[in-house]
């Protein structure tokens, strides 16, 4: 009650209390006096009568106290009601104002709803993808280890050393993803599976729903034929049979005994549904054999940083102990969530920044609208002030109006966000990881409320103070003429300047992304992506144990596919461009000493069929290509790409006739290859990555059982899905077809993140420009309306109408020009933050930095033109009469 903010009030309440006290005393005293009188009349002595009256009355102080307490309680409630009533009045007054000016209210509310809705949408993505922890028990303790900076896989001995020797590592297991063919239950099924070095459930601290996890002693040179199945797989294909433990599944031609069922929802890694032990053969695949992905748990009290520090130490020790495999090898620890979403992190923050700029522009626009209304309402405010409303009350009234606008805008924005999040999930589902957990939850709603409140303060404060500052006398003197308000006009120009500045920044960002998108498509990949359909097969080793079974299968299939209608040529490869599967090893040149540890030239091996290069249109630039004869017997011949030739032999021609061997194979041997030709470089791994050294070997001499078959179609022939399935089934009815796609689709997936950023940032930039143009239009239109009289006089005095148009446009362009300059400066300074999502274009790309100001100037001139032209058409007579 004695709040320092309400001094006058508390004083009056104290006085009020004293009144209550004395009134109660007077009332009760009166009662006792009357009783005394009565007793005296009945014959008591005056003293006796008073004593008796007081006795009969009872506990005087108690009764008086109770009455006072009642009075205080009542006073408090009164006070509260009065205050609530004040707010209620303000709110209902504000609501009436909105109803009375529906155009204004609708514009403001829609502008805010757009800004807030867009912001909440992007925030919900940032929240779901980046901020929400992974749905595991202790997600912050899960981590992965990679070799090198480019997510290289690890070798099993290195994994064991990390797990066994580092104090800050609780556990680290290895796994490798695959898609397993499950047969024996009708149509062959392709199921995402993970071959593990030991139980993966244990790492995540989850207990199996049934049975047990894979044990570490079950992987080894001869892995145990056991499998843990996913909960959904169990429900879907086995009907959730309770007696599933002990039954067997045919997986890739191996009978595996089901020993456990994972808990519901568990699907690490990458939606795996089967986990089974992987064979580990230390003799053939030692410390230099990098074939394992990892996941582990840091020890209690350790951090990713402390793990990294220990890893750095271990790398040095291992390099000394095993120079042949570990020289120059570095390990990198990364938190599991970082690992999962690290690629989109900067992109999402950039989007949030962009949408925040849109929100600021929306705020500026609404503030602008309110400032106009504030000028129009000067008279009203002055009258209310004159009638005794305090300045505080007037500020509060205006703030309540802003809050109401923000509340309605925020609520509408949230509804918009619900729809937008749904759309975005469809749009970005395959591009942004964890998109499936993005939704409008409590945190997003809270965020929206916060943003709406902040927004109300942002756009509400200036007009509120503007309103209250008006002195009664001056306002009433000017009321109805509307020619004052110099301060308001200045603020409005500042706001428009800021809007245009922010629009410039957004447009620059959109422009840079557009250039990136163009650059990505302009990249010469080195092969023709159009009209290629491809799919993969994996022949089970049980039926196809050697190259003598594998080779005829694929060559027969290729032959049959190439005679399908619409098919121009067919070729197969292990490790297709922009696809899965890659094997690399060290390149050893015949006749040269083995390179020192750390000095090796690594090369990626492409195991190809005779028709592959022709199908992909990869040109041979020296020597010859591979022939069907090379695929079967005779000399082991191979091709190398230009990069490998240059790195090892100086020039393409010099490579011909040289011998190379490679330290990797699929178990069918890796001989010394004689180079018979050199092919042009292609971008194999990604659109943005440069060419790598590559060696093309005949699939029939090298393997493996896994091949990706590419069909070059006659232009416009479509995808012959049914025919492909039929041909594969004719050869082997138990082979599922994997990853049937066009290369164009693989390419689209590569540029999808850029595409998404481009779409959203362009959308935001477009919104920003429209809002800024509306803001500018508003300022100029208002300027004209306040100066109708002056313009009328000028026209009457014979001013040229074109001159008036130019004058008004110039007035409007001044804030626009300042805004463009400020925005450019901001874009040039802050362009760095975009680098993570750009490709092939500098943040200070001159084309963008020139185009954007020109574009915005055109928009600004157009926005100012309309009111300016209206001003020039003014009829001087009516303009002069208008006041």
């Amino acid at each position, binding site marked *: 009650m004695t709040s320092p903010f309400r001094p006058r009030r508390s004083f009056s309440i104290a006085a009020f209390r004293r009144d209550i006290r004395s009134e109660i005393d007077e009332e*009760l005293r009166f*009662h006792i006096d009357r009783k005394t009188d009565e007793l005296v009349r009945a014959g008591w002595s005056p003293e006796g009568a008073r004593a008796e009256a007081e006795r009969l009355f*009872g506990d005087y102080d*108690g009764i008086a106290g109770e009455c006072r307490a*009642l*009075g205080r309680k009542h006073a408090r409630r009164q006070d509260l009601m009065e205050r609530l009533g004040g707010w209620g009045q303000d709110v209902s007054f504000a609501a009436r104002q909105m109803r009375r000016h529906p155009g204004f209210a609708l514009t403001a509310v829609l502008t805010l709803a757009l800004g807030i809705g867009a912001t909440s949408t992007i925030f919900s993505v940032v929240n779901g993808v980046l901020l929400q922890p992974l749905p595991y028990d202790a997600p912050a303790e899960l981590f992965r280890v990679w070799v090198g900076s480019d997510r290289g896989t690890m070798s099993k001995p290195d994994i064991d050393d990390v797990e066994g020797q580092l104090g800050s590592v609780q556990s680290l297991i290895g796994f490798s993803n695959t898609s397993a063919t499950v047969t024996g239950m009708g149509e062959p099924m392709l199921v995402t599976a993970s071959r593990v070095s030991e139980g993966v459930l244990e790492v995540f601290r989850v207990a199996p729903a049934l049975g047990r996890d894979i044990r570490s002693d079950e992987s080894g040179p001869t892995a145990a034929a056991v499998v843990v199945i996913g909960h959904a797989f169990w429900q879907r294909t086995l009907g959730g049979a309770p007696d599933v433990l002990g039954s067997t599944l045919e997986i890739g031609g191996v009978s595996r005994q089901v020993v456990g069922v994972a808990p519901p929802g568990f699907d690490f890694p990458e939606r795996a549904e089967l986990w089974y032990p992987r064979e580990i053969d230390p003799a053939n695949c030692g410390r230099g054999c990098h074939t394992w992905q990892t996941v582990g748990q840091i020890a209690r009290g350790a951090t990713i940083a402390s793990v990294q520090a220990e890893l750095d130490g271990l790398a040095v020790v291992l390099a000394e102990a095993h120079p042949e495999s570990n020289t120059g090898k570095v390990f990198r620890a990364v938190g599991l969530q970082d690992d999962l979403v690290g690629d989109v992190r900067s992109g999402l923050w950039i989007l949030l920044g962009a949408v925040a700029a849109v929100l600021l522009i929306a705020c500026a626009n609404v503030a602008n609208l309110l400032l106009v209304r504030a000028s129009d309402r000067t008279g009203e405010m002055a009258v209310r002030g004159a009638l005794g409303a305090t300045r505080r009350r007037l500020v509060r009234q205006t703030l309540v109006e802003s809050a109401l606008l923000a509340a309605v805008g925020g609520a509408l924005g949230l509804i918009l966000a619900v729809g937008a999040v749904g759309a975005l999930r469809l749009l970005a589902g395959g591009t942004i990881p964890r998109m499936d957990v993005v939704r409008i939850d409590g945190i997003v709603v809270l965020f929206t409320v916060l943003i709406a409140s902040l927004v109300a303060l942002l756009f509400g404060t200036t007009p509120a103070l503007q309103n209250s500052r008006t002195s009664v006398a001056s306002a009433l003197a000017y009321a109805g003429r509307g020619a004052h308000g110099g301060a308001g006009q200045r603020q409005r120009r500042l706001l428009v300047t800021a809007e245009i500045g922010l629009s410039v920044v957004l447009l620059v960002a959109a422009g840079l992304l557009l250039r990136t998108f163009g650059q990505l498509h302009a990249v010469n990949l080195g092969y023709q992506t159009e009209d290629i359909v491809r799919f993969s097969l994996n022949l089970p080793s049980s039926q196809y144990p050697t190259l003598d079974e594998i080779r005829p299968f694929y060559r027969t299939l290729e032959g049959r596919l190439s005679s399908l209608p619409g098919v121009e040529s067919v070729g197969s490869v292990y490790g297709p461009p922009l696809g899965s599967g890659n094997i690399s090893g060290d390149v050893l040149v015949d006749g040269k000493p083995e390179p020192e540890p750390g000095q090796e030239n690594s090369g990626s091996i492409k195991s190809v069929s005779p028709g592959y290069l022709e199908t992909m249109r990869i040109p041979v630039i020296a020597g010859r290509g591979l022939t069907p004869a090379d695929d079967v017997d005779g000399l082991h011949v191979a091709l190398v790409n230009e990069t490998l030739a240059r790195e090892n032999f100086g020039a393409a021609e010099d490579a011909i006739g040289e011998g190379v061997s490679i330290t990797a194979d699929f178990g069918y041997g890796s001989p010394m290859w004689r180079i018979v030709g050199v092919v042009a470089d292609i971008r194999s791994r990604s659109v943005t990555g440069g060419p790598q050294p590559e060696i093309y070997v005949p699939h029939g001499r090298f393997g493996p059982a896994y091949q990706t078959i590419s069909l070059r179609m006659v232009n416009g022939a479509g995808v012959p899905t049914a025919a492909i399935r039929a041909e594969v089934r004719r050869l082997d009815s138990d082979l599922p077809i994997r990853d049937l796609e066009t290369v164009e689709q693989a390419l689209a997936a590569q540029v999808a993140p850029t595409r998404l950023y481009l779409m959203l940032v362009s959308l935001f930039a477009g919104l920003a420009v429209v809002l800024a143009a509306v803001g500018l239009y508003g300022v100029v239109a208002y300027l004209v309306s306040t100066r109708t009289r002056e313009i009328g006089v000028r026209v009457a005095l014979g001013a040229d109408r074109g001159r008036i148009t130019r004058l008004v446009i110039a007035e409007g362009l001044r804030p626009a020009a300042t805004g463009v300059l400020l925005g450019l400066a901001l874009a040039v300074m802050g362009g760095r933050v975009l680098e993570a999502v750009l490709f092939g274009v500098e943040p200070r790309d001159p084309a963008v930095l020139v185009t954007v100001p020109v574009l915005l100037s055109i928009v600004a001139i157009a926005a100012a033109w309309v009111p300016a032209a209206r001003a020039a058409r003014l009829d001087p007579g009516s303009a002069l009469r208008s006041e």
Partner: protein
Amino acid sequence: MKPPMDLVRGTVDVLILKSLSWEPMHGYQVSNWIRRITDDELQVEEGTLYPALHRLQHRGLITAEWGLSENNRRAKYYSLTRRGQDVLSERSRTWERYARAVSRVLSATGLEPA
């Protein structure tokens, strides 16, 4: 003289409202009137009366005004408001129904209704 009966909780309010239904009274008059009208059967203690008067006033069922008493002293006079009248008539109806029901039970002569 028998000692006055204890007042059933909640009846004080309705008695006070009733006492004020003819003309404004101060607390002492209210107390006297109730005693007189019930032949001293009911007596509202001062410790109950004054807090009840104040509560009824805060709730807007009665209003108070300072006036001059019979012997020319300042006294606080209470009078019934519009809302007070409504509450009084509603409460008296409820009370009468209740009293009739209780008395019917107590005057019953057999297991079946008469």
